[in-house]
């Protein structure tokens, strides 16, 4: 099934859902925005594909509350897995705010409404307006914001039986074995999806060996609160307060998992910040923690490669070329982490050029709305 089919299915799903949801929301006192940035562009590729926190079909919509014009985020689903994901996210927010061994936590948008209407679960929170998007802050400010966010997460360390009891029910515990098993799956699925890609196969082999050889290091830094999708579009920074938008991606695992995801993201959007963070960990936290960071970068790159190789069979034209370009780029990034070297600047530049020329207009608009370009 190709790009057009999948996109069409997604667009039809969105259209039919919006037709049903709009009057429901209107009765509840909310109006949707004309342009829905979170469901357009390449969003259809990401539907149901999460590594942590559920994988259901749900819509994330923007709108406003009629009585006062307050901007809101509306998460809504009638898909069983999507409903579970929304409920799970809400529970994570509540539990985290009340954990007595968490010294500091993130801010979260105010909950305005949680309700079931016919077969839909609806979860509405305030929209957090950002004057300055994360990537628009100075490099120094981005560095300090990132470090603050990571220290908040690592301050939540579940080690005793009472901690484990509180958090395992809600967040889940990921051990080194879980990470390695997942990576084995990333490797096999990626190779199945892109069987003729020798670079992919070789790099994955090398990466998998590296992870397995350092299983103890992965385990050493587990039991910390971590976020599987810690990237700027899941955060809002208001003055200096960091708001977390996606609580369902929180779990207890290796503390560098969120750092790894964030660093991989910055390989494209701010390579200087990525190197600054690597440098900081290496010089201030010691060799073992730095190794743990590299291991988690590789783990998250495995997930990214599995995702993009998985789109090859379902995409055509520019989208297919874009998937191949992304696969090539992320293989290079994985190799650079394995070799403990920076990603070459020319590679990043070339990748940006490819993104600009191959992305759809709709996706470029979505990226601009999300302030990622």
């Amino acid at each position: 099934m190709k790009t057009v089919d999948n996109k069409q299915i997604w667009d039809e799903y969105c259209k039919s859902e919006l037709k049903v949801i709009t009057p429901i929301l209107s009765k509840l006192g909310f109006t949707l925005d004309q342009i829905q940035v979170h469901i357009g562009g390449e969003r259809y590729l990401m539907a149901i594909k999460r590594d942590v926190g559920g994988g259901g079909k749900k819509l994330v919509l923007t709108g406003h509350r009629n009585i006062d014009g307050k901007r809101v985020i509306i998460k809504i689903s009638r898909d069983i897995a999507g409903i579970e994901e929304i409920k799970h996210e809400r529970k994570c927010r509540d539990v985290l705010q009340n954990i007595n061994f968490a010294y500091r936590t993130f801010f979260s948008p105010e909950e305005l409404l949680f309700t079931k209407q016919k077969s839909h679960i609806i979860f509405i929170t305030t929209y957090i307006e950002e004057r300055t998007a994360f990537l628009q802050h100075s490099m120094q400010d981005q560095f300090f914001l990132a470090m603050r966010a990571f220290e908040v997460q690592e301050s939540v360390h579940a080690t005793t039986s009472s901690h484990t009891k509180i958090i395992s029910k809600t967040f889940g515990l990921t051990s080194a074995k879980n990470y390695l098993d997942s990576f084995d799956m990333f490797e096999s699925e990626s190779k199945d999806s892109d069987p003729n890609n020798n670079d992919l196969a070789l790099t994955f082999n090398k990466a998998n060996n590296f992870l397995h050889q350092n299983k103890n290091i992965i385990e050493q830094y587990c039991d910390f609160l971590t976020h599987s999708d810690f990237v700027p579009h899941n955060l809002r920074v208001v003055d200096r307060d960091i708001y977390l938008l996606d609580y369902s991606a929180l779990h207890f695992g290796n503390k560098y998992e969120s750092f790894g995801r964030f660093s991989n993201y910055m390989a494209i959007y701010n390579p200087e910040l990525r190197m600054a963070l690597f440098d900081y960990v290496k010089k201030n936290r010691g060799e073992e923690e730095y190794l743990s960071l590299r291991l988690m970068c590789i783990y998250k790159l495995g997930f990214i490669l599995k995702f993009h190789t998985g789109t090859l069979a379902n995409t055509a034209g520019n989208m297919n070329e874009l998937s191949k370009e992304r696969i090539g780029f992320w293989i290079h990034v994985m190799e650079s982490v394995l070799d403990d070297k920076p990603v070459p600047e020319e590679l990043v530049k070339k990748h940006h050029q490819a993104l600009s020329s191959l992305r759809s207009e709709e996706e470029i608009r979505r990226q601009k709305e999300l302030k990622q370009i």
Partner: protein
Amino acid sequence: MKIIIATPLYPPDIAEPAPYVKELAKNLRHKHDITVVAYANNPEKISRVKIVAVSKRDWLPVRLIKYTLALYKASKGTDVIYVQNGPSVDFPAIIVGKITGINVIIRFSHDKAWERAVQLRLTDKNQEEFLKYSNGNLQVRLIMALQKFAFRQALLITAPSVYLTTIIANAYKIEKKRIIVLYNPPEKEQILPFTSAIIPYQILIHTSLIKEKKLQEIIYAVLLLKKDFPSTKLIVAGIGQEETNLKKLVQELDLHDSVSFIGHVSRAESWHIRKSSQIYLQNPKNEDTPCDIINTFVAETTLITIKNDMTSEAVVNGESGILTENWNRSELVSVISQLFKDHEMRKKLSGGGQRTLSEKFSWETHIHNLNLILESIKK
């Protein structure tokens, strides 16, 4: 000597005393046979140091028993058990000490009952006030009772300041002669990926924002300082109930361009703003005044604080910092103005801070003094 370091926390845990214990073991291993007995699931390793890890995952009574047994097993031939204060290690160490006849020294860093009360939001008092007028729930009182028992049974207790020896002695009814001062070493300097150049006329205060600290005086001081020093800027790091009132005051005085509230900061940023500020205002009601002062010395930032028994231990007025009599706007303006104008004085104070670090608060001094204590109790 054969030494056991008994600790409730050890890396990869990040909270104190975890980093201290690792650094201590690395420093002591050259001269002594060191074993660390820690509650840990996957402890970081150090060459030539034996790490005995007891899982925290068991139910509390079970892990206490397991820890006691592990400590007992490791204690063969041991000369001293150096306990990093915490009820989960104090109690087992005292039991093992009694059975084996091994001397037990408890290192007091922070009061654990107070820490627990803060964590449970039962108090907003600083440590000293809490110990004078303690209150708390059953759990907090139990921790105090266990601490009292352990402190009374230990051979010696080390405290990070002379001031605290009196507080501990009074709070736990212990003879002062059994409490020895052992100053804490500094935290590691942060190595940042950019420089922290000093920003002229920048003042920093890093503290919890509560009413008792009279932070409005500093804000009024900034208003007055701006007359002669228009570039004066105050950075307020920390969080607390008074934040809203203080921000309101800043708006009323039209100082929003000169006063920034930056909230909670990471270790990296805390280091950076301290290093890049010309003056650090140290509030002695801070939760960890000795550490705060030491970190300012490490950052080579000019220090101003109020004179009292605790600050006078670390700061020599006019040599390593400025000790004011009062925390009011006029005195603050007078002192800060002088320092803004006098580069040589700032340099002198910074140099004095470095000397104090080297003489009193360095790792070398800490290890030297600890070795003296250990030698003195050797059987």
